[in-house]
Structures are given as C-alpha cells and as structure tokens.
C-alpha cells in the first residue's frame, strides 16, 4: 500500500494511491475516522480555446514543486480539519489521461469539499509546473499565474472559491 502524500512523477497516476494515503492512520494511532472523502482529478481535454488538442507535455521544477505541495498542505491544515494527498504527473500525456489528483478526507463533507477545491486553485497559482500544448497546427506553452507564495490576495482568492458551504 502506497501512502505517499505528495508526489511528482512521470508514471500514470492512480486514485487509489491517494485514497490509501489519506485513509491510512498517520501514526498507527486511531483518531476519529473520516466520514467524507472528496477527490479531484484533472484530465487532458481534447479541445482548448477552439483548438483541437493532440497531447500535452508537462514540465516541472520537481524539488520546488514538492515544497509547494507541502506549503499548500500547511495552508490547508490552517483552515480545515483534513488529511490531504496530492500527486501531479509530468511528461507526455494523451487526451483523457489524468494530470493531477487530489484526495481529501475529513470528519465532515463541507471541509472535504472546501479543502479539495482550495488545493486545485492553489496548484494553479504557485506550483512550478508548465503545460506545453500540442494542437492541430502548432504548439504553445500555456502560461497562467506568476507564482508568488507570499501573495496574500491570491491565497485569499483561493480560500474564497473554496468556502461555499
């Protein structure tokens, strides 16, 4: 059983690996069991802004990506009572393959949903990973947010998107 919480890998992602990581007892102790599991999976789409996408190639600065995952884990723990796992894939991904997986357990569903949404928003803000899109007729590096983990406005915006219920 794999219980790695944070992972950047060229291998295909497996949701069961993340679920194992957030449902295993962290220290052999027996804390109140989780009642809710929320997961999110990002999939490679066949279209993007009107272009027919052929494949994506993900590049990452691996050690900094892992530290960013840990930072996101700390930010999540400051707001919610949850256990969280986050795996991101790098390399060539075909249409329909999973690029990112998040799993969050919590005693309560509102926390599980909120934290899971926060994590994907925060990934898009501060994790040093880049998509190279190969489409019919060309290719382009996708550029989203200037990564700045100290940007309070960005972090608050992610907390707001996550705070539905």
């Amino acid at each position: 059983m794999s219980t790695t919480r944070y992972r950047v890998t060229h291998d295909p992602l497996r949701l069961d690996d993340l679920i194992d990581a957030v449902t295993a007892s962290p220290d052999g102790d027996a804390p109140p069991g989780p009642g809710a599991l929320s997961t999110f999976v990002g999939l490679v789409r066949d279209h993007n802004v009107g272009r027919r996408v052929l494949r994506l190639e993900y590049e990452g600065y691996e050690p900094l990506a892992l530290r960013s995952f840990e930072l996101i884990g700390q930010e999540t723990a400051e707001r919610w009572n949850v256990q969280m796992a986050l795996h991101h894939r790098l390399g060539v991904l075909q249409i329909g393959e999973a690029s990112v997986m998040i799993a969050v357990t919590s005693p309560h569903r509102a926390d599980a949903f909120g934290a899971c949404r926060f994590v994907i928003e925060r990934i898009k803000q501060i994790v040093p990973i880049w998509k190279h899109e190969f489409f019919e007729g060309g290719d382009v590096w996708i550029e989203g947010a200037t990564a700045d983990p100290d940007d309070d406005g960005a972090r608050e915006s992610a907390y707001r998107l996550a705070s539905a219920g």
Partner: protein
Amino acid sequence: MQVTIRLFARLRDLAGTGELARDVEEGATVGAVWKTLAGEFPALAEYESSISTAVNAEYSRMDSTVSDGDEVAFLPPVSGG
C-alpha cells in the same frame, strides 16, 4: 563566484538550454543574475515583469543575494493542474 542557472518551459526554449553555469560578482542579487542572462538572451527580456525566481529550490525575491554554488531558477507563469 559561480552559480547554476535553471530555466523552464518557454524560457528554456528561448535560451536553448535549461541549465547554464555563469560567473557573477560576490554579493550579486537574483536580479543581477537575471540582467546577465537577459543581456545574453535578449528574447528573455519580455518576461522580466512576469517571472518568479528561486534559489536552491526555494522561492526567492529579485533582491535576494546569491552565494557561490547556488542554483538560481527563473520560472515563467505557471500552468500546472
């Protein structure tokens, strides 16, 4: 002193390499390393206002100072997920 410069994604494409070793002055800042680099690869200049920087795989600021042997990374806007 010498630093290793790491470039990613389109910055890597524009420079034609993802890793370079360059000599910089004692007490140089990350910003000074960037100026050296942008002097050598003028195509990088358009990224000056949108890059992030890291030293030894920790996010840094343009005014952070670097030391001999440091790995200095320049990161275009990210698009993970």
